[in-house]
């Protein structure tokens, strides 16, 4: 139990460092166990230094920086045992356009490396534009959902009507 957790910690930490740099276009980050000699009861601390900024605990970063760092952690764990499917519900909500761009690039790369199929719910125009295909969900009849294939222009219009 203890050995396995320490081993997976090292693997996840390795993925996390490289994913952080890919999502931020630079910078450094790492994970630490608050109680390295009692990993099964330890806490998981996240130390991150976005490009050009000092190393800080996660709590001192901005809202978008915290979200991007948490995304890196999630994918770091995911990559230790990639699944055939990955489902993301509005994870790009707090990200600005340049972070969304790098997020989409990462997701494209993972899809290519692992063959994972992604289902991504988003309100972001940039994310929509990077998808291979789009489904729109509508409630033309109130309270009743309908699913429909859409192209990018229809999807952009769909963000607005409610």
């Amino acid at each position, binding site marked *: 139990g203890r050995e396995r957790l320490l081993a997976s910690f090292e693997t996840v930490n390795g993925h996390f460092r490289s994913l952080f740099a890919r999502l931020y276009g630079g910078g450094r980050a790492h994970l630490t166990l608050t109680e390295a000699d009692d990993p099964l009861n330890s806490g998981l601390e996240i130390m991150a230094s976005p490009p050009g900024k000092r190393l800080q605990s996660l709590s001192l970063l901005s809202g978008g920086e915290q979200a991007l760092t948490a995304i890196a952690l999630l994918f770091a*764990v995911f990559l230790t045992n990639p699944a055939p*499917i990955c489902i993301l*519900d509005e994870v790009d909500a707090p990200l600005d356009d340049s972070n969304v761009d790098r997020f989409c690039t990462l997701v494209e790369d993972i899809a290519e490396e692992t063959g994972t199929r992604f289902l*991504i719910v988003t309100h972001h125009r940039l994310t929509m534009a990077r998808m*291979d295909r789009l*489904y729109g*969900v509508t409630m033309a009849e109130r309270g009743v959902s309908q699913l429909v294939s859409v192209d990018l222009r229809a999807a952009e219009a*769909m963000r607005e009507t*409610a």
Partner: protein
Amino acid sequence: VQFTRVRLTGFKSFVDPTELDIAPGLTGVVGPNGCGKSNILEAIRWCMGEGSARQLRGGGMDDVIFSGTSDRPARNIAEVSIELDNHQKDAPTAVNEFDQITVTRRIERDSGSNYKVNNQDARARDVQLLFADLQTGARSTGIVSQGKIAAIVAAKTVERRTILEEAA
């Protein structure tokens, strides 16, 4: 094994039979607030064997059944199916003989859920183990519900460590 399709009927706001194809690469789902995007994702987690109604924003599991509008009566049955392609023949032994594996969960108001795998009755546990053998499942890292990112950020360090245990 690959996910190829999800079908849902009577599940939350998707009262009418709905099919979602899952093709390779990136599939986007868009639409205004409240139109049903998260409901589709919850249908997938529910079919994978999610046992807690609170994880699906409900008070009880019957809350996933279409509860009616001013023009339509409530339903009494909700059903979701996930279709898996197994042409690579890398599925768990129990189901590896099949080229296609369909997992179905169905709930009837006041009488609970039942599961089928390729039309054979199955228990919730069997379905959860099947998806776990595929490195996925309702609580797995790759299924990121709305608000999960914020929860990770806000989590106490000890809660956060439990994310690692999925990798172990």
